[in-house]
């Protein structure tokens, strides 16, 4: 009995129902929603599309193919884990936001046309911003506002690109777009690029995610950027420029991650680095590369989610998240420590963990297509990932110097959610064929577990760790400092407000001057008139008869002379 429900529907309905119920019933509803929705997704007919007429255009709100199904499954799993992680939260708003945000992400990846995509694109922004605002701090409110402006702005670019695209092609279908469309292609690529945190457009991520609630960040880190990666994989595979964009994304954030103090911000920078691998894969565009990009997106959602959850648990228990204030937590949070290490091993691509089976697909594709220099940069960033996400996160939170903080265990639902994610990391790492079977570009002829791959990867990781040890023993490792590090956001958080403020001051100065000048002039004229027409003024005073007679005689004389000539 395939019912073919739109895959986002159950999430939206659940988001509404959450408003009505409380207590145990709400918990049941929250857990049941993603499970029911997953079952309904599983029953969805392959190749199914739904059509809808809208102002003369036929919309395709649901298009089922390999790519959309893979991301559909992914967001169900990620949504389920994030929901379990946040079950203890009492704030109804966050549950509503979480469910509707997950629904929007699912809606976006199943969108078969650009107008439907635009709708879900904006819904993603609007539904998620509450997860940032719910933190309640002044910083969170401001960061959420900046996040909303940038996200909605990306939607506006998408809409503009769509309008041009429809004019050019006469079709609103969303398939391969490529760069042939000129401006329309650029606008759409830019819209996708903003959401996937391309360099120079990446700061909304490092700005907003670390300010969200401990549980909100887990939702956020799973959805928005991966929706964008999915859209890039559909619209722009084989766009060579993306290889270099992705390479830049993989390399530059690791420098920021090394010196960043807020451990969730470290993870945000490391997320850009991981998306870099996906963008490179999409840019190469071969079957192996695109499959690798998509597989890595799948794994990244889960291991980055796991790392975000462990840091969320630390923040929830200690109220602190700065590396400079933490340390020694393994004593009171042993399970979280172990789960964090599983996430760290996965993101660093240790053999038997999930990153190992997907990151290497992109790396192999690079060499296969002859991008030797890009490969060296990507290898550099792969080593750097281990350094900042694999070692720094667990080390400074759970080991390093003992901060003396002693806390109780995190809520059980948090531990369960983290354990599910950790189990998936190891499961996919050990049995990659399950994931490979779901990839969009057909059967994967890739075997991650051969001698060469295992040994080379272990060498890379052990000696990266060796560098950490060596730098630490020699006092060269930069200490965790309470600080802010300037990034591109400086332009809109400092320079533009300063310039606008400066321009305002300058304008006020000129304006003031002109006003004063004019007023002074008017008063001056007034004074002169007053003087002239006043009691003693030339014009206002009484004149004597002789003076009058004298002036009359002159006047007559002048008149006579004029007449004479």
């Amino acid at each position: 009995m395939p019912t073919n429900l739109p895959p986002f529907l159950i999430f939206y309905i659940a988001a509404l129902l959450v408003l009505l119920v409380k207590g145990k019933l709400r918990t049941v509803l929250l857990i049941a929603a993603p499970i029911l929705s997953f079952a309904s997704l599983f029953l969805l007919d392959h190749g199914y599309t739904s059509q809808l007429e809208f102002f003369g255009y036929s919309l395709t709100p649901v298009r089922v193919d390999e790519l959309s199904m893979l991301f559909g499954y992914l967001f169900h799993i990620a949504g389920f884990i994030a929901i379990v992680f946040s079950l203890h939260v009492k704030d109804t708003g966050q549950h509503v936001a979480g469910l509707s945000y997950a629904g929007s992400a699912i809606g976006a990846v199943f969108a078969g046309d650009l107008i439907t995509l635009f709708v879900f694109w904006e819904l993603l922004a609007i539904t998620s911003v509450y997860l940032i605002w719910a933190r309640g701090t002044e910083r969170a409110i401001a960061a959420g506002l900046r996040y909303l402006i940038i996200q909605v702005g990306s939607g506006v670019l998408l809409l503009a690109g769509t309008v041009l695209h429809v004019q050019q092609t006469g079709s609103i279908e969303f398939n391969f777009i490529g760069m042939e469309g000129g401006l329309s292609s650029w606008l759409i690529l830019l819209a996708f690029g903003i959401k996937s945190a391309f360099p120079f457009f990446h700061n909304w991520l490092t700005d907003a995610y670390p300010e969200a609630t401990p549980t909100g960040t887990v939702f956020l880190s799973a959805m928005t950027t991966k929706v964008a990666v999915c859209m890039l994989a559909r619209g722009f595979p084989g766009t060579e420029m993306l290889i270099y964009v992705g390479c830049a994304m993989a390399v530059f954030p690791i420098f920021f991650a090394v010196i960043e103090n807020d451990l969730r911000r470290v993870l945000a920078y490391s997320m850009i680095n991981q998306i870099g691998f996906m963008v490179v894969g999409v840019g190469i565009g071969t079957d192996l590369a695109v499959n690798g990009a998509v597989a890595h997106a799948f794994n990244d959602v889960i291991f980055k989610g796991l790392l975000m959850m462990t840091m969320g648990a630390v923040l929830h228990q200690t109220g602190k998240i700065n590396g400079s204030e933490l340390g020694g937590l393994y004593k009171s949070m042993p399970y979280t420590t172990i789960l964090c290490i599983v996430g760290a091993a996965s993101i660093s691509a240790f053999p038997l963990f999930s990153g190992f089976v997907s990151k290497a697909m992109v790396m192999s594709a690079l060499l296969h297509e002859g991008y030797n220099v890009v490969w060296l940069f990507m290898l550099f960033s792969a080593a750097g990932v281990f350094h900042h996400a694999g070692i720094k996160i667990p080390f400074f939170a759970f080991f390093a110097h003992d901060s003396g903080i002693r806390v109780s265990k995190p809520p059980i639902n948090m531990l369960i959610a983290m354990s599910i994610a950790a189990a998936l990391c190891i499961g996919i790492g050990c049995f990659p064929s399950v994931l490979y079977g779901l990839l969009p570009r057909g059967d994967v002829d890739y075997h991650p577990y051969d001698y060469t791959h295992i040994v080379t990867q272990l060498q890379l990781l052990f000696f990266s760790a060796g560098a950490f040890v060596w730098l630490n023993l020699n006092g060269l490792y930069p200490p965790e400092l309470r600080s802010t590090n300037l990034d591109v956001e400086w332009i809109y958080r400092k320079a533009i407000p300063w310039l606008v403020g400066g321009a305002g001051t300058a304008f006020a100065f000129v304006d003031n001057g002109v006003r004063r000048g004019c007023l002074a002039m008017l008063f001056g004229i007034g004074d002169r008139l007053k003087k002239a027409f006043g009691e003693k003024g030339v014009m206002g005073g009484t004149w004597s008869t002789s003076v009058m007679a004298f002036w009359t005689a002159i006047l007559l004389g002048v008149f006579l002379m004029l007449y004479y000539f």
Partner: protein
Amino acid sequence: MKPENEPEDFFDKPQNVKLILRVFYVLSALLVIMDFIFERHPHDPHPWEMVPGFYALYGFVACVTLVLIATQMRKLLMRDENYYDADKTDDGEFPREIKGDQHAH
């Protein structure tokens, strides 16, 4: 700081940390030695890849470079923790020297 009354555990003892590091050094060395014994068979080898110990050297050099550059970046990029919140005062517009007294705990 560890509370006084707490018993020392495994990682509190320097000799244990030393032991772990020794095991780590031995494993690292073994990984490089293996390169000289067994031949690797990459599918599409990078020109530099076949040098024995390439990955080990690259990983080490990459991470040291990464950290040293990042440390230098601090001189240029690091500002006070409340840089963006400190209400529109103009300080911090110029690169600030990292003060010597601000090091780790």
